[in-house]
């Protein structure tokens, strides 16, 4: 497994990120074919940061899988271009290398700046959808409470 050439805490200025999209109707607009800002709104306790993974260091299938519930094939997946994200938000949204011991932790990135819905929406509008939530070829569906 290749290891990204970044130091912990280093800003990443180029490349592509993967971000899962949970299979809830408020996370993905099936009419527009885009995730909503909820898909990029962080937990309040994370101070504006959401998690993502470096595309060049994980497989699409692994990136689309919840490591704690690998049988749940309902997640969607999108790509975020780091340079575009930074430019479109005038530097407000940035990506930082944050490796961890968890699954895919070698490719883990924290994306800062999305506590503000304006920024989360800007990210949603530029996201490139790779996999629509709820449409995995296996036909796998969510196991709980999905809409």
């Amino acid at each position, binding site marked *: 497994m290749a290891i990204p050439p970044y130091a912990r805490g280093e800003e990443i200025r180029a490349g592509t990120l993967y971000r*899962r999209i*949970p299979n*809830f*109707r*408020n*996370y993905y607009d099936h*009419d*527009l074919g*885009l995730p909503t*800002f*909820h898909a990029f*709104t*962080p*937990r*309040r306790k994370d101070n504006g940061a*959401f*998690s993502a993974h470096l595309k060049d260091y994980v497989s699409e299938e692994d990136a689309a899988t*919840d*490591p*704690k*519930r690998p049988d749940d094939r309902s*997640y969607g997946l999108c790509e975020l271009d780091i340079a575009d994200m930074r430019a479109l938000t005038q530097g407000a949204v940035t990506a930082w290398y944050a490796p961890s011991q968890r699954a895919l932790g070698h490719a883990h990135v924290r994306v800062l700046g999305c506590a503000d*819905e*304006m920024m989360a*929406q800007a990210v*949603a*509008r530029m996201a490139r959808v790779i996999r629509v939530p709820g449409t995995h070829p296996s036909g796998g569906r969510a196991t*709980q*409470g999905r*809409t």
Partner: protein
Amino acid sequence: MANTAEDLGQRALAEIDKLGSLDPGWDSYDAESIPEEARTRARDCIRAVISQLGSSYADPVVGPTATPGVVLIWKAKGQGEVHAIFSRDDAKYVVVGSDQRIRDRLPIHAYPDFALQVLKYHLSLLRR
């Protein structure tokens, strides 16, 4: 048979209740369970909206948020939408235009006021 406002409201209330059964990590990124306080705020808002505006507003999209909380989304059929977002501590709304830009976002202080002054106002503008 057409759904009544009460039926539609019950469906939204049931969906809010169902969010209480989501396990921690429901979003695959360590989101917490949806707190009862947020679900109570969302239920109170639905009841106020139905009371103030009636059946055409009784069936929003209901979903969980990672903050953690609940969101209710009223859509104006391709013309934009209003998101009411409830957390353990507060409530706010976000208006998204048909161009997918956020037009407005403010705290919600009183649900009847939100229904009349925000939801009805913005959806009528968005639907024009």
